[in-house]
Structure formats: C-alpha cells, structure tokens
C-alpha cells in the first residue's frame, strides 16, 4: 500500500502541476487526464496495463463500511472554501461552492455554499414550530409532522447570494472561480407551496406583505410581497431527496425561486402577514444597492441573468493541447436560459455554446464548447441570454449604470485569461 497512487493526494501547487503537465506535452493528450487538474499527469506504472493493480486482486470494502456514503478519497480537494479576510467571524460569514469541480446542473448537498449571520442552528425537528399569523382569519402553528401531511411538490432552483461576485465590482480581485462565482447552488427541493399554508390560515384582503423569520441566533428576517408568496414560494424540508442539511436550514427553509438568497429564510419559524414591509436590517442596511447619486435601490429581489465558464478557470487550468471541453453554468431569476454565447478571443468573435441537460425555469443550466487548443493564449468569456430577452451585460456596462458601490447583484461577464502554459487567471479586458 505504499504505492504512490495510494497515498493521500496532496493538492499540488498549481504552478508545479502545470510545469509537470505541460512538460509532458502532447503525449499526455492520450493519457487519462480527464479527471481535471487533480489527476496525475501519468499514473503509477505498477497499476497500469499490462500490470494488474491491487484493487483488481483483493476484496474491497464491504457494504456496511460507510452507512452514509462519501466521496472517494481522491476527491478530498473538492470542498467548500472561505476567504477569511472577508468577514469578522466564521459565524457570520460565507463559504463558496467549488463550481470548477462539478458538472451537470445539480449541486451535491455537502458542497452547497453556506451563508450564516449567526451560525448554523442545530434544531431537533420535534422541537421545531412554524407560526403563521398577522392579517389572517385564523393564526396557526404547525409541527414538522403537520407540514409533512400537506400536499407537496418538487422544484429545481438555483439559489444565488446577492453578493456573489460582489468582490469584483472594482476589478478582478480574487483569482478563483470558486471565490468569484461560488455563492450559487442548484438543488431539487421538496416542499409545500407557501400558498397552501397561507390558504389554510386565510389571508385577509389587506394582507400585502409577509415577514419571514428564521429560528437562528440572527433571527434572520425579510419582507416578501404576497404576490410572490402566493405564486411560487415553497416551504421546503428536503433537498436533492434527503432532509435539508443543518447549514441549509434543517428542518425547514423557504424557497423563493429566482430571488436573492437572503430571502430564502433558513430554520423558518414564523410568518407574519402585514399590510406593508418591515424594513428589516437585511433590507435596509444590507441588500440595498448604493448608486452613484448617493441614493440606493431597495427590494432588489430578482437575480439577473448570469453565466460563468467553470472550466477552464483559475482552479481548472488547461493541461493538454488538442481537444478540450469548455464547460460553464448560466442562470436567470426571470426564467430559462435558451442561449449562451462564448468567446475564446476576448470578444472579437463569439459562438453559441452547446446547452446540455435539463433547461429548467430559474435553475442552473449547463453549457459546453468542445474546442481545439493549440497552446495559444485565450481570453474566455460567456454571455447568457434568458427567456425574457435579457442579455448578460459586461462589467463595464453594469458600472456605467450602477457605479462601483452596489456590492450586490454583480452579474457582469467574467473573463479568464488562459496563458500558453494552460495557467488560467481572473482578468478584466478592454
């Protein structure tokens, strides 16, 4: 078991890896380097044909070794990561989904980014209650058992933090796809339409807004218009088929399709129906967007159409000349993604990407460009179109309207520079 390939894979320094892989050059193109930048450029000869590797000869683990399965040890580098200098504490902080290491459209539960304002509350579902009161005919209180007996539905939706890419307003800052775009995830939720609960209590005609509140130590609260609540919000208890993860609001969270993540109250404990918004901390001092005239937009709920190339990207450089797969994600808070354009030459010429997999309403959508790389420098961008005709703007087009102090809602076009070595970095271009 002392084989090199059985050792814990040390995450290679990007520079070191690139040097090695580029040195092996085109010969490596035929090797199995499809696992991405973490795969060794060449395997251990002891395990390669015609040799018979150990795992072919001896028995593997029995069925009960991992009652709850986890990723292969060779995938240990695929984790959420955070940027310590961003926030004062880890309880009121953010980490990021490793978009560059994922494919398809569904985010695995353990990799969905976290954003807490008072840490992740750990709640015994037997002790969880949801109150519904205010401008209703009959104020009600529900147990988790009650909610599980209501008609439920399944929906796939992206959740994007309004601050995703927020560090990039003034220019390229974080050299990482995970850190520039990783405050988004895409999950199939199982839950009860919020309308079912509201109808059960009977909303009075004067009821125009909801206050939704979490049971965490931040007591997270936002105001949501009644039209949105009645249209498509869910009170969800499952994600990707299993119970919500603690850090995603177990046992109950709000799903607010297409709208900024801060509204998706986790550990949902209370809904009050009122005649006007509450102007909570999170919808006044935060999550408002400051414009150049010194005034700020409020209730900027919808997430505009956006896209990013996840491979290649700073964490997923090109390692092999010849045939390569460019891959990325696009999404819109207003509908579906019918089209994504990609440029490899910094916007001189564009081509339509190949959209693959389900194209769902307000869900991440996967796109690919299969291309040949001859080792030339690339300037890669993607541009999403949504079903309302919105076309993702450049960062400069956004800045021209909004200035530099918005913090939130940066959906501008991202540029990656791929050097002739394959090394890829976050840049802005003319």
């Amino acid at each position, binding site marked *: 078991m002392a084989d090199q390939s059985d050792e814990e894979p040390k995450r290679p320094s990007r520079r070191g890896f690139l040097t090695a892989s580029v040195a092996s050059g085109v010969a490596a193109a035929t090797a199995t380097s499809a696992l991405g930048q973490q795969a060794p450029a060449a395997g251990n000869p002891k395990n390669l044909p015609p040799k018979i590797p150990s795992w072919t000869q001896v028995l593997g683990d029995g069925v009960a070794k991992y009652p709850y399965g986890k990723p292969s040890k060779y995938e240990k580098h695929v984790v959420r990561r955070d940027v*310590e200098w961003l926030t004062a504490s880890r309880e009121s902080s953010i980490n990021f989904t490793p978009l560059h290491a994922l494919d398809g459209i569904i985010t695995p539960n353990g990799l969905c980014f976290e954003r807490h304002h008072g840490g992740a509350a750990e709640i015994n579902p037997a002790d969880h209650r949801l*109150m519904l009161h205010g401008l209703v005919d009959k104020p009600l209180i529900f147990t988790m058992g009650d909610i599980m007996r209501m008609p439920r539905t399944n929906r796939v939706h992206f959740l994007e933090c309004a601050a995703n890419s927020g560090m990039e307003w003034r220019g390229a800052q974080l050299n990482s796809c995970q850190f520039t775009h990783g405050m988004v995830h895409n999950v199939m939720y199982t839950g009860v339409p919020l309308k079912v609960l509201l109808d059960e209590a009977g909303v009075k005609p004067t009821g125009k807004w909801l*206050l939704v509140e979490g049971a965490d130590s931040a007591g997270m609260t936002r105001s949501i218009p009644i039209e949105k609540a009645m249209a498509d919000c869910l009170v969800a208890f499952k994600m990707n088929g299993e119970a919500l993860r603690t850090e995603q609001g177990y046992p109950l969270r709000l799903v607010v399709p297409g709208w900024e993540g801060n509204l998706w109250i986790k550990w949902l404990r209370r809904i009050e129906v009122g005649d*006007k918004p509450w102007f909570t901390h999170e919808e006044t001092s935060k999550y408002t967007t400051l414009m150049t005239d010194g005034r700020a937009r409020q209730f900027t709920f919808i997430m505009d159409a956006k896209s990013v190339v996840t491979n290649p990207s700073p964490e997923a450089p090109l390692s092999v000349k010849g045939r390569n797969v460019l891959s990325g994600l696009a999404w819109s808070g207003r509908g579906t993604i019918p089209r994504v354009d990609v440029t490899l030459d910094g*916007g001189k010429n564009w081509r339509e990407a190949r959209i693959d997999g389900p194209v769902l309403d307000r869900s991440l959508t996967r796109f690919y460009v299969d291309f040949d790389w001859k080792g030339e420098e690339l*300037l890669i961008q993607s541009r999403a179109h949504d079903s309302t005709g919105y076309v993702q703007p450049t960062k400069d087009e956004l800045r021209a309207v909004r200035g530099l102090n918005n913090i939130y809602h940066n959906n501008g076009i991202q540029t990656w520079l791929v050097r002739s070595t394959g090394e890829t*970095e976050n840049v*802005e271009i003319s």
Partner: protein
Amino acid sequence: MSRFPEWRAGLISLVLCLAVLSPAAAEKLGIGRALTPEELKGWDIAVRPDGHGAPPGKGTAAQGEEIFQTQCASCHGEFGEGKDRWPTLAGGHGTLKHDRPEKTVGSYWPYASTVFDYIKRAMPFGNAQSLSNDEVYALTAYVLQLNDVITDPKFELNAKTMQAIRMPNAKGFYDDDRETAEKSFWNRKPCMKDCKKDATVLNRARMLDVTPDSKSGPKVD
C-alpha cells in the same frame, strides 16, 4: 348498450379524485392548530417603522451608554467606530456619493425601528434576545445619539417617540427600477463576428494577491 354510464361513472370518480388530491382545492386541510396569544408573544419580536410590533418599555441614551460599554463596545468600539472587521455604527455622514462610502446607522439606515428590531433579535452577537425591552430602547437611543440623531442624553425613547424619529437618510431609497433603468440590457442582438479589433488585459486578480492559498481551505474530516 350505451357506454355512456360507464364514461359518466369514470368522470365522477375522476372529479372525486381531483377534489381529494388537488393542492388547489379551496377546502381547508384541517392541518395545524390555533396559535395561542401566549405562544405568539414569545416569538413576535419584529418592529416596523410605523410602530407596529414596538413593545412597551423605555430607555435613554445615558442609560444605553453604560450597557453599550459592557455589551457592545468590544466589537463596535466605545463610540461605535467598529473594531477589526466588526461594523462601524456611527459617522460617515455625507459619504454616500464618495468613492468609499461609509454606511452607518446615521449615514445610511432609513428607520430607527430597524435599529431596535435588530438589536432585539440578534444582539449581542452570540447572546441573542438576552436584553430586556428597556435595555434595547436605551441602546437604540445611545446608537442614535452617537449619530447625532438625538442630542439629549435624557431623551426618553419608547414606542411612540421612536416612531416620530426621522433618520437623516430616510429619503435615500427607492424601489428596484432595473427593468426600466436597465432596459437596454434586454432584447439586444449582440455582435458575433469581428466585434472588436483588440482585447487587452487591463487588470489581473493575481497582481492584488489577496486570494487565499489552497492550503488555507477548511480541513476535511
């Protein structure tokens, strides 16, 4: 024999099924029980600008200053100036158009009720909902005094006086207008071929060197 009765029977059973299964059915599910006023009282803590939800109680900035020094100053600083990366609570007046605006309670927040609501529900950080309503009124008064919104340290803040306070930036907000102000982002026919002559790199994240090294990522269990 006519097949009509069979068809009709099928329709009737289909209608019955829909009545039972459809989530859109108007009938009540009969799930959940009546919320009692006592239960609600313990959790109903939200306070709105118009005074809705503001609890009984009172406090002054003078009283609030003492509480602030023991409960808040370790993060927010003695005068709300903020320590390390913890939020600055005061100052920043007139900076909202600046290159680096300072958004504080006084320079940015539109309503005093939000200060009360937030302290009541979330502060002190890590010991939420531990303060009495009188203490929260007093702390709110002190934070408002730090921002010169109130000047008399003996001014009594309560549900009624809090509602009457006008914050300096109360008129600084307007509802999301992206769909009109950014209308040009819709229905464009973007260029696909020979769109520009040059594309040169203007700035690089690597030059800033603020990206955490991969080694600083969280450990895997």
